[in-house]
């Protein structure tokens, strides 16, 4: 990356060294293609999938409806008070990263991270216009001409186009995609939509076109964290120096030479511009393209593949000493990975169970604290409760609220002038709504304190929720 200046003095800053990665084919390149197509397809297509939820909810399969505070994911609808599902997903994502890193190293960085995927996409566009590595270097050094300028214009135009589509797809997750697309094109979309698209277009363009590996090296905390996550039994991209060294090429090769012919193929294909032969290093995103490059070379010089390969540090040591490497099954299945997987699976199962068992009717009861109780003229005592009934289904639901316990008590809604107190009240809750009522409960001056509000849906489902409450009275003077 950046060596100190020749006089040994550190400089104030280091220029970014240009990297022109060479195109390479092979197994890992195909794997990267597959992951890239899958992840980009998911990202761009998902907002356009429709999902019928009836007349009271949007028909977009995945939608973060910030204005109405709802999150829709296919058949699942999340309300703000159910945010713990999102927390659960984040916990799973965190443990998932630990799990993946412990087993197969930085596979996330190398294949699935958006920064990697979009940089890869930008690299392919660059190659399609400017040609491969050597042509790119030539073009960079060439004086400015109409041909060079038009190529540059085309490249940056395409990059900006990708950025625009990327930023555009992002906002579709937050509003009805067809409507927003129409409004966007006709200039009627909200200011915030244009601003978001502009910012994301700019970040995609800058991060994919210019920053590239700098994001991984300087902005992302993950390369630093992985140092703590990896151990000597994690699969990482490794140069087997016991096999490759001493490296030599051309006439210098002899009986004692290692397999490495110092062809620089692994260095030229590297998108972060490092030499994997220096050993495991934080800059390596384990994209494995150097494996593809080296395997091609080994085939050409008739040596076995895998001079650079996915291997554990333990295996490298064992192989160097002439022992057999641990089978891949035993590398992946070990106490640490099993512990991560169990935790990850337990969180996932807990979330699935919670989702399956959740009721779409909810009751919250808040006891009025000021005043806690009111002395009535006939000697009885009154308490007030603010109740919130949440109907989380897209249909109106008739419900009945009843008092459980508290003998002699009765209640009425604060909004009625009709103080005919009853043991049960009926409401009809509109679809997808929260209904708030202030309920007065009157009870004799003496008696128990603990009771409950029971909310029962008056339809076939008979869904019910019970919420415990307390009834407060003035302390009796001795």
């Amino acid at each position, binding site marked *: 990356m*950046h*060596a*100190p200046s020749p006089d*040994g*003095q*550190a*400089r*104030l*800053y*280091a*220029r*970014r060294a240009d990297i022109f990665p060479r195109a390479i084919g092979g197994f890992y390149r195909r794997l990267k293609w597959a992951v890239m197509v899958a992840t980009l397809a998911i990202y761009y297509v998902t907002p356009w999938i429709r999902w019928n939820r009836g007349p009271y909810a949007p028909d977009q399969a995945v939608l973060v409806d910030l204005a109405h505070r709802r999150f829709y994911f296919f058949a699942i609808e999340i309300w703000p008070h159910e945010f713990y599902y999102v927390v659960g997903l984040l916990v799973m994502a965190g443990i998932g990263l630990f799990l993946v890193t412990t087993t197969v190293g930085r596979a996330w960085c190398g294949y699935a991270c958006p920064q990697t995927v979009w940089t890869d996409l930008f690299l392919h566009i660059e190659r399609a216009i400017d040609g491969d590595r050597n042509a790119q270097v030539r073009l960079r050094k060439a004086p400015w001409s109409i041909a060079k300028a038009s190529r540059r214009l085309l490249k940056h135009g395409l990059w900006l186009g990708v950025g625009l589509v990327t930023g555009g797809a992002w906002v579709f997750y937050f509003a009805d995609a067809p409507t927003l697309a129409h409004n966007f094109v006709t200039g009627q979309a909200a200011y915030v939509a244009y601003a978001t698209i502009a910012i994301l277009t700019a970040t995609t363009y800058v991060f994919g076109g210019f*920053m590239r590996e*700098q994001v991984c*090296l*300087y902005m992302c905390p993950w390369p630093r964290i992985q140092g703590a996550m990896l151990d000597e039994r994690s699969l990482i991209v490794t140069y087997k120096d016991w096999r490759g060294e001493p490296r030599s090429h051309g006439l210098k090769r002899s009986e004692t030479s290692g397999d490495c012919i110092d062809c620089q193929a692994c260095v030229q294909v590297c998108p972060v511009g490092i030499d994997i032969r220096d050993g495991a290093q934080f800059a390596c995103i384990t994209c494995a393209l150097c494996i593809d490059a080296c395997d091609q070379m080994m085939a050409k010089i008739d040596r076995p593949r895998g001079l650079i390969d996915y291997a554990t540090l333990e295996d490298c040591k064992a192989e160097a000493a002439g022992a057999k490497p641990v089978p891949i099954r035993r590398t992946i299945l070990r106490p640490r990975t099993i512990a991560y997987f169990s935790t990850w699976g337990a969180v996932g199962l807990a979330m699935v169970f919670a989702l399956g068992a959740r009721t779409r009717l909810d009751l919250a009861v808040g006891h*009025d*604290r*000021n*005043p806690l109780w*009111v*002395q*009535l*003229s*006939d*000697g009885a005592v*009154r308490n*007030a409760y603010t109740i919130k009934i949440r109907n989380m289904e897209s249909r109106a639901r008739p419900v009945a609220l009843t008092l459980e316990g508290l003998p002699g008590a009765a209640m009425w809604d*604060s*909004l*009625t*002038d009709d103080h005919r107190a009853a043991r049960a009240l009926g409401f009809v809750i509109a679809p997808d709504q929260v209904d708030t009522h*202030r309920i*007065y409960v009157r009870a004799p001056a003496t008696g128990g304190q603990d009771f409950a509000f029971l909310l029962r849906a008056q339809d076939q489902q008979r869904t019910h929720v019970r919420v415990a409450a307390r009834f407060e009275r003035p302390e009796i003077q001795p």
Partner: protein
Amino acid sequence: MTERKIDEATGVPTMGHEWDGIQELDNPMPRWWLLTFYACIIFAIGYCIAYPAIPLLHRATAGMLGWTSHGQLAEETAKAEAARAATKAALAKVDIATLDPQSPLMRAAIEGGRAAFKINCAACHGAGAAGAKGYPNLNDDDWLWGGTRADIHQTLIHGIRQPGDDATHMSRMPAFGRDGILKADDIDDVVSYIRLVSRQERANASSARGAKLFATNCAVCHGNDARGGRQFGAPNLTDGIWLYGGDRDTLTATVANARYGVMPAWGVKLDPATLNMLTAYVHSLGGGE
């Protein structure tokens, strides 16, 4: 500069510091990082010119854009006022006594009244309207001057014992002790009787004497059954609710010196919409009739 140490493993100069064998490398920053840093400095300078930034002796520099937090607040308040204007206009015109209690306008009135109460009324009646000694609890079902929306509206506009307001609620209980109408022993007997009808004491000779004194002195306003009379604002003496207290000492003081609680006539101070909102809110507190 002196010769700098070079870290053997990386070939990078060190800062010359060492902690437990760990050395700090002196890696150069990436250029884009430095440029971003300079860009932030330039932005900060521009920001200081555009917005209030530098504190001086009496005030800060104003900034070219003329933005102030007070101005922003005023702007947003005006926006909120404009959004509420239609509702407030409707509330100013409506007859709150006959407004449908379930209507959206009534809900708006109650919410508006909740806020207006905190500003105008909470000083005496408390934030929860639970009152205090001498200041009635507005949550209960015991009303001196009536608990319908029309009654509450009337009380709000004209107040209680408000000088200069002809329609104000006015009543004067005689100070039976101070004015020499009743002797101390008589007052004691009357108090015994009041504590009997409010079921705080058992009947005895004193309360029997007090009953006769009550019939001649008090019943004209408080009623023969001591249940009070709203046309005089005379409280019900038989229930468990006391404005000043139902114990012997407080009752003795009340009978001897009388009580003349006051409330301002809010009609001259508040606009019709706010009066309607306060009426709706107080009525919704649970004791509304």
